[in-house]
């Protein structure tokens, strides 16, 4: 059996060539070479170590993915503190019960964790009152009183309003595919639906938004 050993050295991934290859070389893998597959491999390795109680591995996983999952949580919740709470609780739950990951060993960590974060966000929005779109950000920026900035803010507000008005599943499809940059298949996996269903949701979400924002597109 060919085994490949991974080492994590100061944030850089180094993969050792399998020992039964003609030359034993240590090849550094730089970010961007094949980031998705490499990260998925590294994540799986880190999760194995976390299951054995390795806190260093947990720290590495948190540092690697916090920004990404905070971003997706914020897109759903539009609240900094709520997004922080959801990401924090999700990671702490993983640390307390790392065996939860073992249940779905065939899934990539990010796909599985997206699902956890997105579901928690949706649960959270159901419990809370409807989103208040105008928060302190807008008030602070109004002081600038710059016409162009105000116009931009107005466009943002309209966009937020129309996105918030989309049905929950359409909004999720849009967030995952357009804003998170997941492929249609990855987004379908996160949402636990078929590819065709995801594409239907995405199509309806974008078509609705295009209708509402038509005057902005044509301007």
């Amino acid at each position: 059996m060919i085994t490949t050993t991974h080492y994590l050295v100061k944030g850089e991934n180094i993969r050792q060539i399998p020992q039964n290859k003609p030359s034993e070389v240590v090849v550094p893998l730089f970010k961007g070479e094949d980031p998705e597959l490499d990260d998925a491999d590294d994540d799986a390795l880190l999760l194995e170590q976390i299951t054995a109680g390795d806190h260093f591995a947990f720290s590495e996983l948190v540092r690697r993915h916090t920004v990404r999952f905070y971003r997706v949580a914020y897109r759903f919740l539009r609240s900094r503190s709520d997004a922080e709470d959801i990401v924090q609780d999700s990671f702490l739950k993983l640390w307390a019960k790392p065996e939860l990951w073992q249940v779905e060993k065939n899934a990539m960590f990010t796909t599985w964790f997206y699902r956890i974060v997105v579901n928690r966000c949706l649960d959270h929005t159901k419990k809370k009152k409807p989103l208040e779109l105008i928060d302190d950000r807008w008030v602070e920026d109004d002081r600038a009183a710059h016409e162009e900035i105000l116009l931009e803010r107005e466009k943002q507000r309209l966009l937020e309003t129309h996105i918030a008005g989309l049905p929950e599943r359409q909004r999720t499809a849009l967030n995952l595919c357009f804003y998170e940059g997941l492929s249609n298949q990855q987004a379908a996996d996160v949402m636990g639906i078929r590819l065709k269903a995801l594409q239907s949701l995405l199509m309806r979400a974008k078509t609705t938004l295009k209708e509402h924002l038509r005057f902005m597109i044509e301007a």
Partner: protein
Amino acid sequence: MTIDTNTFREYLTLYGTQLESWPQAARVQAKTVQHQPAFLALIEEEKRFERILRLRHMETAPTNLAQRIITMSLAKGCPLPQWSFTDILTSLKPAALAAMLILGFAIGFGALTIPEAHNQTTFSQSMTDDEGSVL
């Protein structure tokens, strides 16, 4: 294989304006028409739409969030390793298993010979008086 404007528009909606990131079959179809005026207009319209979508306010994560999570996890303590007896057995190499078996037998046989050794001690003790000198 040709593609009509409706299908092309559908692909634009599903996969975005970066034709290189489309699934291969759709990309091959798109390449044959992407420079035709009707299709170029569709791409431009979709790009304008995407620009509007990107206006959405994006909040960056607080710089200390990751560190906060790590610190809190330390306070929660270490999860118990999820090992089972099967995991331990499968992680052992055959040589190690054989060595453990031999060791087990040795300990087992050793236990059988203990009463004999005990008797010997008793015998040697019987050969000494209370002060320990040989009779």
